[in-house]
């Protein structure tokens, strides 16, 4: 068994040397990188980082999926560094906070985000260096220079199986995100356990955000492990176009994508049949869609069977590197999230909560001992999800214990985190965020004093709050947009300790 990501990559880059590892678009041209070239670039970036004194450091990544992002990430984790992938869509202030909280001393950043470099330099005192993933900027080193430094360097330190390979931030129920520390062995064990067969050269289209554990481990690391050709979807706007260009055999998607594509298939008019429309849209070769992150209704599984595409649902969380269970092409049951992976034990607590232990469960939350102690009790990780295991060993999920909103795009949203930000508006007396119609809705009790002071009627209140929400939305990644507003005439019902009773909203 490979216990290190470096061993996985060295084997793949040697065994699949001549196969394309990554394909992407530049304007309308398809570019590609072979496994051999990928391996060479990873080595040069790793040595470059070591030559510049970053051995043993934590390094942040801010950018969308790209060959440069993944090469730099692997440069870090095949050495003795810890990668901290961040959501490039987050406001700069929140990114700076996470860079500080994870004690990162280096940062790789996409050219599209280079305007944020001065802000990070000012707000992140521990940050020693910024590398630009593509393009050039006066205040950051280019990848070409980093790789040149690597070429001239003799050392090549690696890591041990228990070393932390990456820290993934997940939404916390207290409004503060937590950094799940995943070791080299946590990641390698998850790859090893997803053992079902896949031929080298199989084409995958990467459409999920690369800072997510599901995407990073299951699309990229597992894809490389199996010798897949991983194609980059440059923008969600171009999802349909790019499926036609790259013609994938398999894709990882969150339920929202599956729901959206089915709407596009259904919008194609006669005389084109639905299966023909699906062939056109998917590029004609798609056979498997792996999904997770949120529940997908059985309806979609049935509909995609009409197109000869099998949707295989799985279950996981960042804290488990990330897959806990999965349906496979040969062992699946509709409605379930599959059987636990061979390296994971799953049991159901008395209150119905799913508990997990095994070699993919994280080490701890970074610098959060109390949260770690609450999450891992007697060696079992408390998932916060409720479910049951049927007589054949398949897991079914049927509820949640922790207060997180799971959207169908797989994003977990902490309502308190958003409520705290909206609460600063004078017109908002009390607010609760709920998940409705695939998005977030703010339920607001307007502040009576502010309403009186402004002599506002209901329309005035609504317009005032909507204008504030529109401004708030402009600063947030799309999945955190508030897309609905409901006003209420009375304050929320509270517990004895003055907390809002969320189940009564």
């Amino acid at each position, binding site marked *: 068994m490979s216990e290190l990501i470096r061993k996985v990559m060295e084997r793949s880059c040697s065994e699949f040397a001549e196969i394309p590892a990554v394909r992407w678009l530049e304007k309308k041209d398809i570019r590609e990188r072979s496994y051999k070239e990928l391996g060479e670039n990873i080595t040069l970036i790793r040595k470059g980082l070591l030559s510049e004194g970053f051995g043993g450091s934590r390094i942040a990544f801010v950018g969308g999926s790209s060959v440069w992002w993944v090469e730099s990430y692997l440069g870090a984790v095949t050495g003795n560094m810890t990668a901290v992938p961040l959501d490039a869509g987050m406001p700069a202030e929140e990114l700076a906070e996470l860079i500080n909280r994870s004690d990162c001393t280096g940062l790789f950043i996409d050219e599209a985000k280079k305007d944020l470099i001065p802000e990070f330099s000012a707000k992140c005192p521990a940050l020693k260096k910024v590398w630009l993933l593509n393009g050039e900027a006066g205040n950051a080193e280019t990848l070409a220079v980093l790789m040149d430094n690597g070429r001239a360097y003799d050392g090549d330190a690696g890591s041990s199986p228990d070393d932390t390979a990456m820290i993934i931030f997940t939404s916390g129920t207290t409004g503060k995100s937590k950094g799940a520390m995943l070791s080299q062995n946590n990641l390698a064990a998850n790859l090893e356990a997803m053992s079902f067969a896949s031929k080298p050269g199989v084409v995958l289209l990467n459409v999920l955000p690369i800072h997510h554990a599901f995407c990073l481990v299951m699309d990229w690391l597992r894809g490389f492990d199996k010798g897949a050709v991983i194609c980059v979807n440059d923008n*969600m*706007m171009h999802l349909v176009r790019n499926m036609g260009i790259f013609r994938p055999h398999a894709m990882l998607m969150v339920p*929202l994508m599956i729901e959206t594509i089915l709407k596009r298939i259904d919008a194609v008019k006669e005389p084109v049949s639905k299966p023909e429309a699906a062939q056109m849209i998917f590029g004609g070769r798609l056979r498997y869609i792996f999904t997770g992150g949120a529940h997908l209704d059985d309806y979609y599984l049935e509909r995609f069977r009409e197109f000869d595409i099998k949707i295989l649902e799985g279950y996981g969380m960042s804290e488990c590197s990330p897959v806990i269970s999965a349906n496979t092409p040969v062992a699946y049951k509709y409605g379930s999230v599959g059987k636990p992976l061979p390296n994971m034990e799953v049991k159901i607590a008395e209150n119905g909560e799913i508990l997990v232990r095994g070699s993919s469960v994280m080490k701890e939350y970074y610098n959060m001992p109390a949260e770690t102690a609450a999450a891992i009790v007697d060696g079992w990780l408390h998932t916060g999800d409720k479910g049951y295991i049927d007589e054949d060993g398949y897991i079914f999920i049927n509820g949640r214990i922790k207060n997180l909103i799971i959207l*169908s795009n797989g994003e977990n949203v902490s309502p308190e985190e958003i409520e705290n930000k909206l609460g600063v508006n004078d017109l908002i007396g009390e607010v609760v965020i709920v998940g409705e119609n695939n*998005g977030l809705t703010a339920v607001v009790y307007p502040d009576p004093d502010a309403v009186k002071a402004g002599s506002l009627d209901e329309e005035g209140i609504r317009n005032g709050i909507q204008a504030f929400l529109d401004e708030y939305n402009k600063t947030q990644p*799309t999945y955190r947009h508030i897309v609905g507003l409901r006003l209420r005439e009375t304050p929320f019902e509270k517990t004895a300790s003055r907390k809002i009773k969320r189940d009564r909203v």
Partner: protein
Amino acid sequence: METKFKEILAQYTTLSADEITESTRFRDDMALSSLDFMTLLGEVEDEFDIEFEESDAVGIFTVGDALALIGRKTGNE
């Protein structure tokens, strides 16, 4: 331009062309998901042979906002 845009839009909503005005909101009134909206922009790019930046989508809430954006990109303001 407006007619063509509304034709594309008709495939994304149950609202009729008459019900769609410049103040119609994509999320609240048409119930488009964030991904429906991005896919719509991709289709508009192909139809009008224009290119949007990721940042262009920020601040586009209504049909009027989208028409103004397309106008800017096609030079037909």
